[in-house]
């Protein structure tokens, strides 16, 4: 019943689009747009197929799977057909936050769990609010599931499992806090995505009391989703990536390269600043030592010492801010470009599969004009993939622009604040120095 209803609503929408076209669009363009809307409908239906819940699945959160699944699918379908208008969150109906990290010490292992609080008005959530605890492994599981079940979409990256550089204390407050922020960002990115946020694994992740039970159950059932993709690797080489995807690929290569450089520069700056701080911490007290030798000069020297102390504190705040706020965002985007490259590769495989089939058909039956159904299906899949990828890429570009704008403005702000604090400190000692001078 759900299938029918949603297919119908899609059709209604298509008709509406055609209706609108008659009014606004010149005749010769209408054909193109009609075709586009057909494509959209196909894509929507395909996506719907992928989203369709497995009937034999028991959701461990005690909800009623049959009852909730249909509206979920149809609303996701509508969501897609709205052409992602509301990514800015005006109509946001799902809020997820990660907080309150807790350390668990067991006999076998020690790990951190994070509290995940979900508030939603969506119908697929039985309760308006959920609160569960998850550890990194669970996030990792979720990401794998999303990759499997949404192969055509760009899945946001998780923070690295281990920090490569040096021996980092995984349980230190800073490390846990940085990771918490990254995990929060990860879930928020999924929440903001018009398709991924409706993924059932995501739903389970947010709501299930016992995620492990669900994990075990899911292993057998969900392996076949990625199947078709894995299937193709049988030697066929893609003729050529379409220009626009080739451009995306090139873009990502350069983007990752430049971001890597920025990351190194930022780390180097922090390193230099910390060394500068070490020297400043020695520099200030020398003025204090000097002041003990002097009479009239004692106060001015003490003033300079205090002033250098204030500047040191401001500098420390700056490096802390940069370490905590600047570097993680860069890292996220470096990882993002990897996720993106892997989706791009999957897309190539789908295209390769289609081209291989098309070639095989052309070789076998050159005289028959009709293309077999499986080849058509394959073409649909490719087109659907392309459309998803393009939409995700566009969304990503938009996010990236906003994120970097904010990030870089934040960097500028932090530096301005640092200089303002130092300026205040130095300005405050000028009268102290001058008064004495004039009094003499």
């Amino acid at each position: 019943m759900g299938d029918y209803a949603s297919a119908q609503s899609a059709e209604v929408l298509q008709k509406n689009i055609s209706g609108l076209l008659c009014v606004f669009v010149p005749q010769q363009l209408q054909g193109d747009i009609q075709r586009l809307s057909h494509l959209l409908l196909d894509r929507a239906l395909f996506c719907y197929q992928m989203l369709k819940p497995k009937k034999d699945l028991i959701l461990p959160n005690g909800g009623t799977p049959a009852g909730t699944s249909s509206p979920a699918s149809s609303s996701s379908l509508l969501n897609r057909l709205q052409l992602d208008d509301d990514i800015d969150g005006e109509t946001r109906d799902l809020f997820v936050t990660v907080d309150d990290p807790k350390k668990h010490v067991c006999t076998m292992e020690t790990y951190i769990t994070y509290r995940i609080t979900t508030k939603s008005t969506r119908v697929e959530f039985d309760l308006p609010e959920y609160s569960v605890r998850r550890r990194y492994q669970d996030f990792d599981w979720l990401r794998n599931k999303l990759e499997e079940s949404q192969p055509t979409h760009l899945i946001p990256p998780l923070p690295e499992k281990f920090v490569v550089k040096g021996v980092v204390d995984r349980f230190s407050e800073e490390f846990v806090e940085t990771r918490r922020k990254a995990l929060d960002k990860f879930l928020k990115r999924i929440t903001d995505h018009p398709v991924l946020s409706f993924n059932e694994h995501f739903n389970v992740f947010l709501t299930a009391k016992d995620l492990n039970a669900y994990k075990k159950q899911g292993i057998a059932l969900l392996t076949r989703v990625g199947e078709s993709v894995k299937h193709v690797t049988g030697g066929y080489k893609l003729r050529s990536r379409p220009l626009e995807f080739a451009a995306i690929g090139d873009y990502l290569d350069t983007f990752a390269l430049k971001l890597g450089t920025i990351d190194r520069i930022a780390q180097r700056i922090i390193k230099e600043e910390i060394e500068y701080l070490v020297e400043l911490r020695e520099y200030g007290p020398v003025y204090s030592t000097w002041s003990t030798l002097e009479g009239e000069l004692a106060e001015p020297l003490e003033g300079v010492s205090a002033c250098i102390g204030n500047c040191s504190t401001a500098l420390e705040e700056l490096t802390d801010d940069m370490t905590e706020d600047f570097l993680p965002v860069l890292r996220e985007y470096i990882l993002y470009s990897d996720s993106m490259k892997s989706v791009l590769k999957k897309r190539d495989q789908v295209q390769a599969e289609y081209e291989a089939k098309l070639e095989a058909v052309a070789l076998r039956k050159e005289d028959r004009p009709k293309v077999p159904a499986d080849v058509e299906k394959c073409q649909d899949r490719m087109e659907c993939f392309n459309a998803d990828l393009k939409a995700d890429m566009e969304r990503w570009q938009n996010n990236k622009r906003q994120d970097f704008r904010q990030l870089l403005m934040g960097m500028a702000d932090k530096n301005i604040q640092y200089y303002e604090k130092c300026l205040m400190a130095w300005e405050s000692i000028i009268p102290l120095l001058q008064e004495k001078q004039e009094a003499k």
Partner: protein
Amino acid sequence: MTENNFWLKKIEISVSEAEKRTGRNAMNMQETYTAYLIETRSVEHTDGQSVLTDSLWRRYSEFELLRNYLLVYYPHIVVPPLPEKRAEFVWHKLSADNMDPDFVERRRIGLENFLLRIASHPTLCRDKIFYLFLTQEGNWKETVNETGFQLKADSRLKALNATFRVKNPDKRFTELKHYSDELQSVISHLLRVRARVADRLYGVYKVHGNYGRVFSEWSAIEKEMGDGLQSAGHHMDVYASSIDDILEDEEHYADQLKEYLFYAEALRAVCRKHELMQYDLEMAAQDLASKKQQCEELATGTVRTFSLKGMTTKLFGQETPEQREARIKVLEEQINEGEQQLKSKNLEGREFVRNAWADIERFKEQKNRDLKEALISYAVMQISMCKKGIQVWTNAKECFSKM
């Protein structure tokens, strides 16, 4: 002499130029040195305009000679120090080469400052050799050597670490000596750390310059973000290059501190001279006391302490009364002489203490004034650096906000 003083009060001194020269030294070896042009202008009363009076070239070694002469002739004065011969306490980006133009320029300022310090000193400005240093290019060295100042110099002072066992040191001078030691150590520590601070600050700024390049490269692949990134990159370049001027200004502050680092040495020189005088005085007093004792022994015939003379008397028998009379007479003469000497040394010592203390008081005032000024100018430099920083980052923020 008073004529000179009168003249110096209406004169402006400047070291206006430095020039690299090659010549032959005493060993007839080729050498390169820097000569400095000293210009003196007398100030006209009527319109305040200055007219070039004289100009001549001097090299660093001649400045050194002048100072050595002053040190010997004015032991009670804290003689202004020369700027360093070789660059010290430099941060590594700065050249330590003696011929480096920046170093030569800073030394030029230092030498000018040295001359101005002497010219403004109430006693030193009246010195004839100084006057000739400014006005007579040829034969100046010969004139200095004719003063015989080198003979007058006490070689004991050259042994830098020798201490004289003074029984009754002047507490004020002991404290002053202690102060100059501490001052020297604290300023040299300060200069060392400041050089490292400058090094690190340089690093922080210059690494930001890398953003300039990478933003510009990145901007090439971006559409909407491109322009903002590109111009922000430009501001990062500006930021990175702004440090050069900032640190160059700071070097001036370092030079001001260095002058007082060397002043600490000059202060100690005065203390040492006082110590030496006190030592001589005590030695003379001791000598006199022992002679008085001898005289008394001879007169009374008793030997209070064990001595070689006592032994010889016991072994060889008593002297004749005539011999004894003659010896007592000689000793009495020596005692008289010694008493006169002690008196004059005492007088000399008191005179020295009075003069030295007056100059030390003058020096302290000058030091407080100068260092306060130096601290103010340092604070002003820091303020201008902060303002520059705020400006650049505000500009960059503006660019980022357009992305």
